[in-house]
C-alpha cells in the first residue's frame, strides 16, 4: 500500500530561515499572506547580499582584478543555476532583467518591433497582469497590429475552445501567464504553446506566479520565451530573467544600448556582443543576481514537489474554511490552482477587510491586483487575496478565518 502523500517539510525549521516572519505587528504575530506580490527572503539570500557588498563588490566582466573575477564568477553562476532550474538548453539563453515586466517589454520592443507587422495578431488571455497587456498595446499602436483575448470561463479557467478559434494564419505571437496572479488558475500552457506553434506563432509565458510553485521545463514546454521575477521566488527584488530560444534571441535587435552589450564601438558603426550580453546593457544588478542564486538553491533544496504538496494542502484547507464563512464568495475555482485564494464578501469592501485584517497582523492584498480585465470579467471592483508560500501554516490560515469571521459579524 502506498503511503499517504504528505509533505516532508519541517515547517518549524524552515520558518527559522526567514527572519522577517518572527515579528509582531500591532501586538500580534505577523501572518504574511501576500506572497503572490512578493515572497519573504531566507537568510541565505540576505547574507549573500551582505557578503557581496562587504567582500567582493566589483563591476563584472572585463575586470582583471581578483574582486571583479570573483563577482563575475558568482554572477554567471546564477545564470547557470537558472538554466538548470528551467532546463534551458544553454546559459546564453538566460538574460538578466529587472523582472517579468522588463522581460515582456524587452520581447515586445525587440522581437515585436522586428517581427510584428500591420494587421498581425497577438493573442493574450483575459487572465493577464497589466504588465502582460500594456507592452502589447504599445506595440499594437505602433504597428497597427491586432490584439485578441482568450476569454475566461466562470470558474476562472481559460476557454481553450475559444482560443483555438482565435488562432489564425495572422497570429504571430501568444502571450499568457503560467498561473494567474489574481485567481491562481494554472493555465494549460503546454497545450496553448502547441496550438500556437501549429498556427506558426511564437509564445511568451509569464512565469511570475509559477517560479516558486510549479515545475518549469522550457524545453519540454517548447515555449519561445519564458519570464521569471526573483522577488516572487524568495529572491531579491529588482532582478529576474528572460529565457528565449537562442535562434530567436540571435535574430532580435538589441533592446537597450550601452556598455556590456557591444563588441566594438566606432562612430561609423557599432557591432553587438554575443548572447546573452547583447541584451544586458550597462552595469547589471550584480548583488541581487548573485543572491538570486541562493533563492533558487532554497527552492531546490526544499524540493518543488514538497513545496507543491504543502501549498496545495494549505490552499485546500483555506478554500474550504473561507468558503464556509457566511456571505463569502471565492472568485476563481479552477481545477488546478497555485496557492492563491481570491474572495469577496457581500457588502464589505475589500479595502475594509484588508485594513481590518492588518489590525490583526494579517497581511493580504486587496483591490484589482493589476488585473482590471479579470475584475471586469467577474463584474467586481476587486477582491481580497490571500496567497501562500512554503513557510505558511494551517494555524495562520485559522487566524485569517477567525479575523474574517469577526469582521463579517461586526458588519452584519
Amino acid at each position, binding site marked *: 500500500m502506498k503511503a499517504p502523500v504528505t509533505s516532508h517539510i519541517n515547517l518549524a525549521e524552515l520558518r527559522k530561515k526567514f527572519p522577517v516572519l518572527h515579528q509582531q505587528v500591532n*501586538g500580534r504575530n505577523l501572518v504574511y499572506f501576500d506572497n503572490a506580490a512578493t515572497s519573504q527572503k531566507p537568510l541565505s539570500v540576505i547574507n549573500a547580499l551582505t557578503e557581496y557588498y562587504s567582500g567582493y563588490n566589483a563591476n563584472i566582466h572585463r575586470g582583471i582584478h581578483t574582486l571583479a573575477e570573483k563577482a563575475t564568477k558568482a554572477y554567471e553562476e546564477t545564470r547557470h543555476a537558472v538554466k538548470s532550474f528551467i532546463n534551458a538548453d544553454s546559459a546564453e539563453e538566460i538574460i538578466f532583467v529587472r523582472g517579468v515586466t522588463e522581460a515582456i517589454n524587452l520581447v515586445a520592443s525587440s522581437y515585436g518591433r522586428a517581427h510584428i507587422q500591420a494587421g498581425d495578431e497577438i493573442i493574450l488571455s483575459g487572465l493577464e497582469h497589466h504588465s502582460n497587456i500594456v507592452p502589447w498595446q504599445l506595440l499594437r499602436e505602433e504597428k497597427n497590429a491586432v490584439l485578441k483575448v482568450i476569454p475566461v470561463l466562470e470558474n476562472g479557467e481559460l476557454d481553450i475552445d475559444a482560443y483555438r478559434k482565435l488562432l489564425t494564419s495572422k497570429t504571430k505571437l501568444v502571450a499568457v501567464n503560467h498561473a494567474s496572479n489574481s485567481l491562481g488558475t494554472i493555465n494549460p500552457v503546454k497545450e496553448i504553446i502547441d496550438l500556437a506553434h501549429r498556427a506558426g506563432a511564437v509564445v511568451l509565458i509569464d512565469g511570475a506566479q509559477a517560479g516558486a510553485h510549479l515545475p518549469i521545463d522550457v524545453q519540454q514546454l517548447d515555449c519561445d520565451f519564458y519570464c521569471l521575477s526573483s522577488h516572487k521566488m524568495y529572491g531579491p527584488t529588482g532582478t529576474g530573467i528572460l529565457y528565449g530560444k537562442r535562434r530567436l534571441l540571435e535574430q532580435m535587435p538589441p533592446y537597450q544600448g550601452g556598455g556590456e552589450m557591444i563588441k566594438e564601438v566606432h562612430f561609423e558603426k557599432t557591432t553587438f556582443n554575443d548572447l546573452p550580453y547583447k541584451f544586458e546593457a550597462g552595469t547589471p544588478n550584480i548583488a541581487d543576481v548573485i543572491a538570486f542564486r541562493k533563492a533558487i538553491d532554497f527552492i531546490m533544496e526544499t524540493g518543488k514537489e514538497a513545496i507543491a504538496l504543502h501549498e496545495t494542502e494549505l490552499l485546500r484547507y483555506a478554500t474550504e474554511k473561507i468558503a464556509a464563512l457566511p456571505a463569502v464568495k471565492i472568485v476563481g475555482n479552477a481545477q488546478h490552482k497555485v496557492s492563491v485564494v481570491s474572495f469577496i464578501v457581500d457588502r464589505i469592501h475589500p*479595502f475594509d477587510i484588508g485594513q481590518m485584517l*492588518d*489590525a490583526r497582523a494579517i497581511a493580504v492584498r486587496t483591490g484589482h491586483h493589476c488585473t482590471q480585465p479579470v475584475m471586469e470579467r467577474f463584474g467586481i*471592483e476587486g477582491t481580497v487575496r490571500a496567497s501562500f508560500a512554503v513557510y505558511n501554516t494551517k494555524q495562520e490560515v485559522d487566524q485569517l478565518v477567525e479575523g474574517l469571521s469577526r469582521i463579517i459579524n*461586526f458588519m452584519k
Partner: protein
Amino acid sequence: MKSIIDIQNEIINEFSLLDGDKEMTVFYIMELGQRLPAMKDEDKTEEHIVKGCQSKVWLTATLEDGRVWFTADSNTAITKGLVSLLIRIFNGQPAESILNAELFFMNKIGMERFIGTQRSNGFAAMIRQMKLYALAFKAQQEA
C-alpha cells in the same frame, strides 16, 4: 454650537479610550461611519467624488443661514467613518471658521498608524475638498 477646537478635543478623548488598540480603533471608525446620515443616491454623482481618494467618497455641501452643512458617503466603511469625523467637526460652522480651522486631532490620535498612508492622503483630500466648499460659500456671501 461647539467650536471646532472643542469638537476635536472630544474626538481625541473618545479615541483615547481605545487605548491605541488598532483593531478596536478601526472597528470604532467604521461604527461612526454607520451612524452617518444617508446621502441621497442622486447626489452620488461623478462631480461629487473627492479626487485623491482610493475609495470612492462623495461629498456635497449647502449653506443655510450662514452655516455650512455637509453630506457624504463612501463605498468603503472605514472611509465613511473618516469622513463622518470631519462632518462632525465642520457641520453647522460658518464658512470662515472652516476655512481657518486647524485640524490637530489626527496627529493627537495617531491616525496614520491606524489607517495607513494611502488613506491618510485620501483623508487630506477630503479636508481640502471641504475647505474648497467653504471658500466658495465665503465668496458667495461676500459677493
